[in-house]
Each structure stands twice: as structure tokens, then as C-alpha cells.
């Protein structure tokens, strides 16, 4: 029930966005030509359309992100409940982060954070 207003806002936002996209269909001019419809490439004939290949560096960053993102799962609960956990929570998180930072330093030493 608490999420009903959010759901309604979501529906409104999607509806308004869709409606706004519909406006140009009614009032905008439509004079298309093959040249206008070509992908933009600074005025030249497009060469070598992108085919979805990209450097492996991007995946490395993605994997690094996933490692730390899983850690965040734990941290959300910890941050919210910290007042109640007190010193116990602090030491617990220190141990957890120490282990995590070990991996982080390993990645750093191995050059996983370089972009070359």
C-alpha cells in the first residue's frame, strides 16, 4: 500500500512521456529524405557502422563494480542499524572491509585499475 503512490507516479510519468512523444506526430512537419535519414557522421558517407565490439577494459570495470556492489548490500543494512549495533557493528565492519581491501589492493597492484 505504501508503494501505491509510487506506482501511480510511475504510471503518470510514463504516460506523460508517451503523450509528449505523440505531439510531434500531430503538429510537426514530415519531409524526410534518404540523406536526412542516414546516420550522422559529420557530413561524410557513414563508414563502418558500429557492430557492438568494444575493448575488454569496459568489462574489467564492470566486474570491479559488481564486487563492490555486493559489498554495498551488507553496508545498507549496517548503515541503517549502526546506532543499535554500536562497537560490535564497528569491529564487524572493520574486519569485513579489511578483507575486502586486501582484494582491492591486489587488484591495484596487478594493474586492474589502470586504463591503458
Amino acid at each position, binding site marked *: 500500500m505504501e508503494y501505491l503512490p509510487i506506482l501511480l507516479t510511475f504510471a503518470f510519468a510514463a504516460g506523460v512521456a508517451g503523450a509528449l512523444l505523440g505531439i510531434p506526430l500531430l503538429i510537426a512537419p514530415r519531409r524526410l529524405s534518404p540523406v536526412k535519414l542516414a546516420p550522422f557522421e559529420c557530413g561524410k558517407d557513414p563508414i563502418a557502422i558500429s557492430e557492438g565490439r568494444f575493448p575488454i577494459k569496459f568489462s574489467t570495470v564492470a566486474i570491479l563494480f559488481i564486487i563492490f556492489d555486493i559489498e554495498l548490500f551488507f553496508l545498507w543494512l549496517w548503515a541503517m542499524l549502526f546506532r543499535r549495533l554500536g562497537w560490535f*557493528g564497528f569491529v564487524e565492519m572493520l574486519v569485513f572491509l579489511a578483507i575486502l581491501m586486501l582484494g582491492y589492493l591486489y587488484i591495484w597492484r596487478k594493474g586492474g585499475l589502470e586504463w591503458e
Partner: protein
Amino acid sequence: MTLPPLAYHALVGFVVLNVVIGMVTYVTLLERKFAARMQSRIGPYYVGPHGLLQPIADAIKLMLKEDVVPTTADRWVYNLAPIVFLVPCVLIFATLPFAPGLGVADLNIGVLFFLAVSSLEIVGLFMGGWGSNNKYALLSAMRAVNQIISYDLPFVFAAFVPVVLAGSLQMSAIVAAQQGVWLGFVPKWFVVYPVIGQLAFVAFLVATLAAENRVPFDILEAESELVAGFRVEYSGMKFALIQLGEYAHMIGTSFLAALLFLGGWLGPGSEHALVGALWFLLKAMLVFLVVTWVRWSFVRIRVDQILAISWKLLLPASIVLLLATAFWVAARGGDGV
């Protein structure tokens, strides 16, 4: 007169949506005026008094523009991308209470919801870059994903500092925790907490700049390399929706920064909901103007520098900051900071 709950929620959602769209439209004017002043220009001036009708003229112009879909584009992905981009950017306002009890839904996991939804915009962004089937757009989308997932971590870590200090993820509880004054005149906002408050605020602002793809982190639309980035193929209303989403995201995060660090709606006379909302708006606009100020003061930095700042500086620094905050809270006995 009391409305049935469903109609009430629908009304509130509709009002907030319209307020957001109206606000975003006028924030573009604010930014242009502010940018112009920084460069000793006047800015928009001719449409209406002091250019006050400029955003409306812009909106009408964009509606009248021809809608061009390139032949090579993936039509479904291309057409859906602006909507997928805009919706999360508007939805983040749903959890923001603008004053006590004045908001769509004050969830008990407000901050989590906000951060989760605000990073969803990257899906729409990547859809736009991929669906355009243009090499500039694709490169830009790839850079954007790379950057946003790198800066999401320091962003969340910096946001944890107020959460730990307040002991809650609920937005209204975080504001309530900032009530009161020190020494009779210093407000107890989280930004004035010695050292940790300021450092967390700076880390949050830097991560915000990167999450919004603003200068100096705007490599995804580096004009000299990628023309207009992922939105190079978009025209007319679709372009407008993407711009709208981008500004809504920016304003939303400015509001979040004002709420987490600057005491939200707290201020003289904030017992009245409207005065409180005005304070909140004022603080959020202040954060937004700082972001704009940065935009016209810094140069764009390189991809490797952007990643190095995130992974080698901000991430470890924000983890240490979070631990320092936790240490402080624990040392004070876990209650009443």
C-alpha cells in the same frame, strides 16, 4: 472534504509530476542566465520580460520539430529510450518529502529507493546510444556506463555518512535528525559536523557531478570527439525528453544533497509546510548553482583520469570517511550525536 485514498495518491502524484516538469523547464533558464552572468553576458532576454518565457518558447519549438528516425536505427529501442530515460529521473522525486508530510511517499527505505532508481537512468541512456546505431552514440553510451558504475560506489558511500549519523533511511527521519542548534546559532546540519560533514559533502558533490555526467566529467558528450554523445541522432521531442530527464536527474540529486547535508526544509519559520518547502527549494537551487559554477570553471578531464579519481581516490577515501563516521557515532554511545 476527504478524498478516497486512491484518488488522493493519484492527485499528489500528478501534482508532483507537473511541479517537477515545470521546475525543470525553468531551471534551464536559471542555468542559462547564471552561465551568461559568469561570462559577462545577459543571456536569454527577448522572449518575455527578461527572457522569462524562453523555456516555454523552447518547448514549443521542440514540439514543432520534425521527428527523424535514422534508417539504420533499431526502431523499438531507439523510440523507447527517451521514455526509459525520463521515467526514473522523474520517479526519484516520488520519495522526496518537500516539507513535513508534503510529498508522494515518505518510504522507510527512501534513500535506498532514490539511489537505486536514479542509477536506472543509465538503462535508457545505453538504449539510446545502442539503438541509434551510430558510432559516436555507441562510444558515448559505453563511456557513460563505465563512468556511472565507477562513481556509483563513492556516491553511495558518501550518502551513507548522513544515514549512519541519522540512523535511518527514511528521508523525513534524516531531516529530523538535523534539527536543533549548537552554541545557540549553528544549525545542526550534517554538513557542519566537524571534518566528516564537509568531506562527505565534497565527496558527494563530486560523485554527483560524475553521476549526472556534468563538466568536468562529461566525456560522454565531449563535443570535440563525440559531437553530442548518445543523443546525436535524437531530434525534436525525443531530444527534449532526454534533456528533461537529464535536468530532472540533476535537480533531484541537488534536492537529495540539500536533504542529506543541508538540513532539508529546516530553517526559520519551517513549521509552516510552504515556508519549509521554500527553504528546501532554496538550498537545492544553491547546490544546483554550485554544480553550474563548476561547469563553467573546469575543463573536461580524460577517461583514465576519471577512472583513477573514482577507483584510486574517492572510493578508498569515502570508505575511510564512513568508518570514521561510524567510529564517532559509536564513541558517542550510539545515540544522540
